[in-house]
């Protein structure tokens, strides 16, 4: 066992190094999205009242549900891993990837429809804020799906397993974070 791990394990009060790393990364992501959301909100306040009426709330509500269900699938996958069922876990991971891809697909479709209606990044202040912050979020979902595929490969190979589930747990933190950001965005941009 290498000495770095030895020291990591030595005090039970210490959070696993990989999880601590992910939490700190997510803290920095909170600041990144915080900056973008503040800018988007500012653009909203500088815009007339109906600036977000072009947005399709029902379709996006369904999409939000898709993302929330995908987070549930992540919880199920982690639980299966921790219960010693890697194949079940892998199935839940595949479902997560499909749901994540669905989210992206619906988002892109919505973008195309909005642009067709004249609601483009350059067409207004709110529109610019909308596209900027949601496309950064979409990029994070995309990265999540790619890294999830890598997790699925590792689970198939056995390097992520009931004995070594922390990498997936850390990845799961990222995915849940991306989900929470979306809930905030949906509320601020679409509903309010």
């Amino acid at each position, binding site marked *: 066992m290498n000495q770095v791990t030895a020291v990591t394990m030595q005090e039970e009060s210490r959070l696993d190094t990989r999880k601590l790393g992910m939490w700190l990364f997510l803290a920095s992501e909170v600041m990144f999205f915080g900056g973008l959301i503040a800018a988007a909100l500012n653009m909203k306040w500088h815009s007339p009242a109906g600036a977000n009426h072009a947005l399709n709330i029902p379709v996006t509500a369904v999409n939000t549900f898709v993302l929330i269900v995908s987070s549930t699938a992540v919880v199920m996958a982690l639980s299966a891993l921790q219960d010693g069922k890697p194949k079940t876990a892998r199935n839940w991971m595949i479902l997560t990837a499909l749901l994540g891809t669905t989210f992206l697909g619906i988002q892109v479709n919505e973008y195309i429809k909005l642009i067709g209606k004249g609601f483009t990044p350059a067409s207004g*202040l709110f529109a610019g804020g909308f596209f900027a912050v949601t496309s950064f979020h979409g990029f994070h979902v995309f990265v999540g799906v790619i890294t999830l595929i890598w997790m699925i490969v590792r689970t198939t190979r056995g390097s992520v397993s009931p004995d070594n589930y922390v990498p997936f747990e850390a990845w799961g933190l990222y995915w849940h974070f991306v989900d929470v950001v979306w809930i905030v965005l949906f509320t601020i941009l679409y509903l309010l």
Partner: protein
Amino acid sequence: MAEGYAPAARGGWVVHGATSWRDYFKFNTDHKVIGTQYITMGFIFFLIGGLMAEAIRAQLSRPGNTLITGNLYNELFSLHGTIMIFLWVIPVLTGVANFIVPLQIGAQDMAFPKLNALSLWLAVLGGLLMLASFVVGGAESGWSAYPPLSEQTGNGQTLWALALFVIGFSSIFGGLNFLVTIMNLRAPGMTLMRLPLFSWSMIATSIIILGGTPVLAAALALMLWDRVVGTHFFSATGDPLMWQNLFWFYSHPAVYIMILPGFGIISEVLPVFARKPIFGYKMIAFSSMAIAIFGFLVWAHHMFTSGMNPLLRIPFMLTSMIIAVPTGVKIFSWLATIWGGRIRFTTSMLFALSFIAMFVIGGLSGIFLASIPIDIDVQDSYFVVAHLHYVLFGGTVQAVFAGLYFWFPKITGRMLNERLGKIHFWITFIGFNLTFLPQHWLGLEGMPRRVFTYPPEFATANLISSIGAFVLGIAVLPFLANILISLRAGKLAGANPWRSLTLEWTLPSPPPIHNFPQLPVVISDPYGYGRKQSAQPAQPQPTSRPAPTGGGQ
């Protein structure tokens, strides 16, 4: 420990540890190599940024000069600032921290060695993009890049924003790595209250990096969207002031990123060369954390004349004055540390003592600037230029030199030449003060910054300043010569030439690839100079002993 850290097969581009100079040009996961790569890269950009400064001061040596005017001049001062901050100071401090922190805490490497190497190469990429921006031309709106101007300048501005975006991620991943490393990889017995103060300063610095840099990334992303996609976040029809808020939300804490590691270095150097324990260890550690937190509450003092809500300026003036207090605590602690000590005036110590004096001057001009009525008068004048150079050059850069002269023996195994070092110090000290002291007067008398000429009444002061800049340029030569000569022919240093008590000095110089052959167990704090328990005249009692055999591995 060896698994995952074995050097790659010969010819591989991913390695751990360096057995030849070629290994320094590879994706190397050893924190000691990465530290050296950062320091070297930083120093190269120090020279580039310095040459830009020489060009600026040459132009300003006489009123009405036509050496460098217009767009090129704008680019020079913009890139001088950007390069010095993001490609010299921050990388060189990251480099020193990379080399020293794992050794100070008794770790084999950083928590995430591959991420560490990625951070380094992202910084290099960012540096290349920044140089490309200079070549393409157009980054002319100062290092602070205020719109609408920064959205109307040429393509180099887009490259500038992209370069900074990349460098920002290098920094964020670095901060993450340091925080996890210090939190989780300390050797047994190294409680936080036994952590060396340089490592404490890296805790505070990393918190600022994680909290602030992403906001700069957001601002740059939005500027890039404005320039490339055609959005209107900061344009005249949007909200130009929003850029200033987002930018300074990071860039003010950034100055604490640039000074806190310097404070940490001073806290290491002074006890060693005064042979006295550090005074006020806890106060120094906690004041670093206070600065980290308070640093996020002052940003709008850069915007007092921007047209922001006048009433809102008042709380920012108050926080900007309050933040002087934790720094004052440190200054007094350092003075108490050397008071009554047996001072050895090595080059490192000279830079450390000069740091205290020059930083206090810079800090005082900062307090002047915190006052709204004074700031209204001297905003965007040479008074600000004088202030920032006293804290960044008189402060940080002198701390960097103090640290380099202190840790060069550990990093390379050889001593630097003290005579050349003292020549470097004195020429720097004289050149620095000649350059920047007159600028206080110039600012108070009304000379604006970022101008390529000025009225005749400012001629004498500008000439003195330019002569000082020339002297500063010369000062680099003995330093460079010292490095090159000492690398080849410097006196062999041994493990602990300064008789310091922190953990890195228990290892050979340079340290072996995997640092500690056995996990050290720490039994006391590292500042016990002159205490009875360390009563061994030739070699002080190390503050650690090897782990008991048969256990802990």
